[in-house]
């Protein structure tokens, strides 16, 4: 022990620790993703569910109730499915930091393994939408951008804006931006309808159609600015502001110079 603490103040200690931590996270993650990919035995699963229950009791039960039956301030989680947990916890929305208007996206509190355990626990309570696997999320192969665009404009643009930048809802709530959201989370949001968002059933928007929507969102996200700075892609408000400030602003500046007497 002494030997280690001797190196604690070493110049390289910080970077070294960071490296170690990264390695640890990487390993856990690869192990975690490997376990989801590989066939998990039923023993493993019940172990995972138990682990999830423990996390749940510590981090979630104060609001959602000891058996996830819901309470005054939080809904029941029975039947919401693993997809819902993966979305809410995986995007950091749950656990909620404060009980304000709406759960915001933030750094997730739980790592991938813990999230998977929580999801397994909630899924064990009652059947619900499952987390889509890698093969079900191959939007590049199964989706069509143009069709996705049409579906997006019909079903998503009214809240998330024409370019997926998000928009205002009533009473201070808002539809978040879709830029930079993982395809899995977009998919889960559509099937589970988190917070203000409604559910988009697999029968009205088929899984292939959902992938098309994801493909379109990813294409809009990747699309470089064809005509100059994007101004946030929120429509005429920022355009008008820039027209006045930069456009007329520069011109008035030149006009002042023009009318000034030369020395």
């Amino acid at each position, binding site marked *: 022990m002494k030997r280690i603490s001797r190196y604690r103040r070493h110049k390289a200690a910080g970077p070294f620790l960071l490296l170690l931590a990264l390695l640890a996270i990487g390993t856990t993650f690869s192990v975690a993703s490997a376990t989801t990919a590989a066939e998990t035995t039923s023993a493993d699963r019940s172990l995972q569910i138990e682990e999830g229950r423990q996390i749940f009791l510590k981090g979630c039960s104060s609001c959602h109730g000891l058996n996830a039956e819901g309470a005054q301030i939080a809904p029941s989680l029975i039947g919401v499915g693993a997809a819902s947990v993966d979305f809410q916890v995986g995007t950091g929305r749950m656990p909620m930091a404060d009980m304000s208007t709406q759960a915001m996206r933030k750094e997730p509190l739980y790592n991938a393994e813990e999230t998977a355990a929580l999801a397994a626990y909630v899924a064990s309570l009652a059947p619900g939408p499952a987390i889509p696997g890698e093969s079900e999320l191959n939007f590049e192969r199964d989706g069509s951008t143009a069709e996705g665009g049409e579906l997006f404009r019909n079903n998503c643009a009214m809240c998330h804006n024409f*370019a997926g930048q*998000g928009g205002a809802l*009533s009473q201070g709530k808002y539809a978040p931006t879709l830029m930079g959201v993982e395809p899995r989370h977009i998919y889960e949001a559509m099937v589970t309808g988190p917070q203000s968002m409604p559910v988009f059933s697999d029968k009205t928007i088929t899984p292939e159609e959902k992938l098309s929507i994801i493909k379109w969102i990813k294409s*809009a996200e990747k699309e470089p600015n064809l005509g100059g700075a994007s101004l946030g892609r929120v*429509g005429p*408000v920022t355009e008008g502001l820039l027209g006045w400030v930069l456009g007329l602003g520069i011109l008035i500046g030149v006009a002042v110079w023009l009318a000034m007497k030369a020395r």
Partner: protein
Amino acid sequence: MTVEARLGSVANYVDERTGAAAWMKKNLQKVFPDHWSFLLGEVALYSFVILLLSGTFLTFWFDPSQREVVYEGSYEPLEGIKMSAAYASALHISFEVRGGLLMRQIHHWAALIFMAAIVAHMMRVFFTGAFRKPREGNWIIGIGLLTLGIVEGFLGYSLPDDLLSGTGIRIAEAIIQALPVVGSYLAYFAFGGAFPGESFIPRIYTVHVLLLPGAFLALITAHLMLVWYQKHTQYPGPGRTEKNVVGYPLMPTYMAKAGGFFFIVFGVTAFLAAVASINPIWLYGPYTPGQISAGSQPDWYMGWLDGLVRMAPPIETHAFGHTISWNILVPGLIIPGILFTGMALYPFIESWITGDKREHHLLDRPRNAPNRTALGAMSLTFVMVTLINGGNDIIATHFDLSINQIMWGTRFGVFILPPLAFVITKRLCLSLQRADRELVLHGRETGTLLRLPHGEFVEVHEPISPEKAFLLTSHEQAPPLELPEVDGRGVKRAGALRNKLRSRMSVANAEAIPKVSVNDLKEIEHH
């Protein structure tokens, strides 16, 4: 032959064929006063020229048709989507025509700057009193140009037939449809049947590229001819009177400056078009009535109208089997109608209040017309409040507010803030007048402290120059109108109530801090 000699022979050539020498000689030496605020109207004029040029470019490829086509162009995310030929051709201009996107963006930015310059120019004319006799007619032409500009801009916004355009047209249709008695007929005539139909875009295209530009050209010509004939107004100052114009001759100085400024305006518009994306129609997708985007807004010059419509209370009258939508008619037609009529009539209202029927060529400093300045500030506040509500959803998401809060804020604000702006501006003007008076009487504070023999510290004041003193005291301070309520024979005059109102307003209008006279200065010297 030198350049001068060559140009001289051109002048000779022209005169021998037109006899224009006398007229040209006089007008080439025409004097234009120089001030940056006089260039705002020029920005509008040049933007109009840019709009004509870039607009012509766009017409070469734009297909104003609502015929349904399947997109086969190079923008993949819309591949195979059904859309109107208008939208498809707007995409073609954006993606396949080299420089087409640049031109589209120049056209749109020029439109925004055009409207902004018109409004800024109007503010200059209003706050300096340049609309007074003999320029009332030109003020009205200006109001006409502003109105046309709003309509023309809206039509241009509607032409590409993308989702945002269509939403705008939908709202315009709802306004037409809301007109009592004739609404649904007018809507059916305008759209050639049920909304959206296949006729509206071809029709507004003709209006956008032919009828309104023609009207613009006629009005702009009249506007400029009047400026030319009546000579430009000038700011007050030493050597400047109601009887003269001080400035630079048209040829060559003003010509070079004005000509150069055209290129500046074009250059700045092109710069914006190069660096900032405007109306990325390909992201909006084609219009269909079942779709909508969050944050659907009009361009800024319509934004205040949209804000008014948003804040309107939900009132409709249902009676005798008919419906009247006050929630559309009042904010969409009646209030703008009152505003624009009031603006057009303002020169006459002011001269009625002041009883002033003389010509004015010297501009007012805004502080010296406190009532007018306050009224202007009040109107601008009204427009700003409604404009803010017009973008309430964008403001809400970007500043962590709620649209309901902003809506309620502006619903109250639209009644409270404009009168408040009036009072504050008027007080501000009067205190600026007071500061002017102090400055003329006691001079400029130098910041140097002087210790008097008996120990007191005083700040040294330095007298201001005679030029400055003249500038600060050259304005007129007319007493209020005296309107006796009874005539010479003791009989009450007709229209007593009107007279009372008039003299009340006249008294309020004449409120001022007395300007410094020579007598005041002499008195100070005695002390």
